[in-house]
C-alpha cells in the first residue's frame, strides 16, 4: 500500500481511496457501523447454516448437518398430511354410489380430478392420455362400448378386465375362422363385404349379397346378433355403426375374420383401491362416452 490515502478531496474534505477511473476518484467514506455489524452477522449466519443443515459435499454423499435434517423426510411428512386431509373426501368417494357421485358436483369434481391422474398413470399407455384410444384400443370418448357404457358396466370392466385371467373377467373372443379352417378364403371375402354393407360402406364389384348374408347367419349371428347389432354380454361389437376398433377396410376385416381378435384389458382390482377404481369409472363415464 502506498500513501495515496493522504490525498484529500477538496470539495468534501474527505480522503479518497486512491482509486481512480477516468478522472473520477472514489471517496473513502466509512460504512455505518450497524451496516457492518449486519454484514458480519450474515457471514456468521451462513457458516452456522452450513454446519446445521446438510451442506458439505462428500465423494458419494454429503454431510447430514447437526440435526440430520432431510428434505426427503419433509416430503414424506407432507404427503402423510395430505393423505390425512384427503382422507374424509376419499372416504366419501368410497361410500357413495356411482350415480350419487355423478349427481354431487363436489364429489364429481373430486372423482374426475382423481380419476384423471390415475388414468394418466395406468390407462394412458393403451388408451392415450385423453382416452382417445388407438387401433385395437377403444376410444373411451365415443358411445360405442364393447362391454357396456353405463357407470356400473364401466366399473366392472375396470375392476375385472377383459380376457385378463381374473376369475370374474369378461370372456369372449372373435374366432379365427380362416386359420381354423371354418371358412374358405372366398367365403371370408364375401362375408367381409357383407359386414361392410351392414354399416353402409361400399362393397366390392360382383359380390354376392345373398351368399354373404347366409355365411353371416351361419357363423356370426351367434355372437354379433341378428343384423350384426352386437352383444355387450360377449363383448361382440356392433357391426352396423360407424365405429371400428381395428378399422373398416376390407383387408382389415379379412384379417380379423381369418385370424380372430382377442385384445386384453387388465383387471385393476387389487392393484388400485376401490375408491380409486370408482373415481376412474366416474372419470371415464364423464368423458362423454357413457350410456
Amino acid at each position: 500500500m502506498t500513501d495515496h490515502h493522504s490525498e484529500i478531496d477538496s470539495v468534501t474534505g474527505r480522503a479518497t481511496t486512491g482509486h481512480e477511473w477516468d478522472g473520477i476518484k472514489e471517496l473513502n467514506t466509512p460504512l455505518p457501523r450497524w451496516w457492518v455489524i449486519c454484514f458480519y452477522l450474515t457471514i456468521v449466519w451462513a457458516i452456522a447454516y452450513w454446519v446445521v443443515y446438510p451442506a458439505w459435499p462428500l465423494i458419494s454423499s454429503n454431510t447430514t448437518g447437526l440435526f440430520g435434517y432431510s428434505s426427503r423426510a419433509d416430503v414424506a411428512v407432507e404427503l402423510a398430511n395430505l393423505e390425512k386431509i384427503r382422507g374424509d373426501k376419499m372416504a366419501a368417494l368410497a361410500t357413495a354410489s356411482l350415480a350419487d357421485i355423478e349427481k354431487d358436483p363436489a364429489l364429481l369434481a373430486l372423482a374426475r380430478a382423481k380419476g384423471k391422474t390415475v388414468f394418466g398413470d395406468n390407462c394412458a399407455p393403451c388408451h392415450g392420455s385423453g382416452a382417445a384410444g388407438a387401433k385395437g384400443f377403444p376410444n373411451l370418448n365415443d358411445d360405442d362400448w364393447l362391454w357396456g357404457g353405463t357407470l356400473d358396466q364401466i366399473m366392472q370392466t375396470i375392476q375385472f378386465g377383459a380376457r385378463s385371467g381374473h376369475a370374474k373377467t369378461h370372456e369372449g373372443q372373435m374366432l379365427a375362422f380362416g386359420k381354423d379352417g371354418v371358412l374358405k378364403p372366398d367365403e371370408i371375402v364375401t362375408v367381409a363385404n357383407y359386414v361392410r354393407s351392414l354399416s353402409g360402406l361400399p362393397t366390392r364389384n360382383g359380390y354376392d349379397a345373398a351368399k354373404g348374408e347366409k355365411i353371416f347367419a351361419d357363423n356370426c349371428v351367434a355372437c354379433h346378433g341378428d343384423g350384426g347389432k352386437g352383444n355387450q354380454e360377449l363383448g361382440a361389437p356392433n357391426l352396423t355403426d360407424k365405429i371400428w376398433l381395428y378399422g373398416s377396410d376390407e383387408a382389415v376385416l379379412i384379417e380379423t375374420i381369418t385370424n380372430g381378435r382377442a385384445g386384453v384389458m387388465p383387471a385393476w382390482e387389487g392393484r388400485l383401491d376401490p375408491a380409486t377404481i370408482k373415481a376412474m369409472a366416474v372419470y371415464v363415464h364423464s368423458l362423454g362416452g357413457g350410456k
Partner: protein
Amino acid sequence: MNKAVNPKDLTPVDDNAPLYAARKKVYPQSVSGTFRRIKWGLMAFCLGVYYFLPFVRWNRGLGAPSQAVLIDLPNSRFYFFFIELWPQEVYYFTGLLIVAAVALFLMNSVGGRIWCGYLCPQTVWTDLFYAVERFVEGDRRERMRKDKQAGSLTLKRVSEIAAKHTIWLMIAWWTGGAWVLYFSDAPTLVKDLLTFQAPMVAYAWIGILTATTYLLAGYMREQVCTYMCPWPRIQAALTDEWALNVTYRYDRGEKRTSVKKAAELRALGEQVGDCVDCYQCVAVCPTGIDIRNGPQLECIQCGLCIDACDNVMSKIGRPKRLIGYDNDINIHRRQEGKAPIYRFVRARTVVYSAIIAAVGGIMIYTLATRSLLDVNVLHDRNPLAVKLSDGSIRNAYTVRLLNKSGYDRVIAIDADGPVNPTIHVVGVDSVTPDRPMIVIPRDSTSELRLLVTAPADNNPEKSIPVRFHVTDIGLGVVASTTDNFVAP
C-alpha cells in the same frame, strides 16, 4: 452551493480510521410554523385512516363480509367499500401500482421529495416517535445533556427511559395490530386476540410489525432514508431544474454573520446576507444536515428548517423564506435582479398527469362495466373431436362459470355453431332438452364438462366457430364466449 475547500484548511482524515463509522445521533429540536402544522395535520390524517379504517362497516348483505376494507385471503377476495375483486382481477392492483408510481413522479417533478417529507410511513412514524421522545425526555438540549450524563442513572432518568420505550412499544404494537385487522373481521379478531383465540399467524404478524415499527421509527430513523431507501437515488435522477426543493437562498444569505456585526458591515457598505448563522435550521433537521450546503441526498424536504429560519427572520426583522421551496433557476434570476419564475405545466408534469388520467380512466371504466357473470371455455385437446356410432360428431369443452353477484343464479347454456346441436352437461339431467340449466351459487365459480354434438346429417365439413351463451334465467343477463367446433 459548495465552495471549493482549500485542502490546507481540512483536518486530514486518519488513515487508520476504522472501516465503519458510528452513527451520529440526531437530536431534532421542536419547531412551530406553517410546515410543522401541515405535518401534524397529515400525520393525524394518515394514522387515523390506518388505525381506524378496519373498523368501518359496509353492508353487503347476508353472508358477505360487512367490513369496508378487507383482504379475504382464505376466499381469495378483496373488498373495498362497494368494490369486490376476484383473483383474476388483480390487474386492478397493477393499475393502482402504476398510478401510485407515476403520482410519485408527478409529486417529485412539482415539489421534490414532498412524499418523503410529509407522507412516507417512515417519516410519519419517526415523527410520532420523536414527539413521544420530546414529550418524555424534553427538547434537543435536554436530550443531549441527558445522553451525555448516561453514566449517572437517577431513578427519574430510569423511569423516563422506561416510559419512552413503553409508549413506543404501545404505538408499535397498535401499528401491528391494525395491520392484521385488514385481513379478518376486525371486531371478531380483536375479541379473539384478547382472549387468545386468534390464529397463530395473527400474533406472529403483530409481533413482526411491532418489532419493525419499534426499530425503524425508534432507532433507524433517518438512516432508513439515507441508506436503505432507494427513492433518494431514483428521485435524484428524475428531478429537474423546475422542481421546487427546500433551498437555502444563498443569494440573500451570504455572507453570514451576527445581527450586530451585519448592521456594522452594512453601514460600511459591505455585502452581508440575512443568515445570522444561528444554526436553528440545523438543530431542527430530523436528518441532521445543514441545508445551507445545498441540495443533499439526506434531505427529505420536510420543510422544518423553513419554519425554523422563518421564526428567526421575523425576530430579526428580515423577510421570511431565506430557506424555502425554490429552485436553482430562481436563485440565479434573483442574483441578476429578475423576478422568480415558477412553471408547473411542463412536458413531464403533463405526461405524468396524462398517464395517471389514462390508467385511472381505464380502471374506472372497466370497474364500471365489469360483468358479474362470466364464462370461460376451454376445448378438449385430446381428442379434439369424437365420431359417434351414428356418425354424429361430438366436441367436449371445459366451461368455467363465474357468478360474482351476491345471489344464486339459474343459468341456461346455449351453443351457436353446428346446426341443431345436442348440448349435454356431464352430471346434469337436462329438464329442457338440449338447453342444460344449472344453478351456480352466489360469489363462486363452477366448472362443468360440456358436450356438444352435431347430428350426422348436419356434420360440419371443417372446423367452425361456436358461440356459447350463458343466460341468467331470472334476470336475462347474458355472458358469451367463442371457441371452435372441430370436425375430425
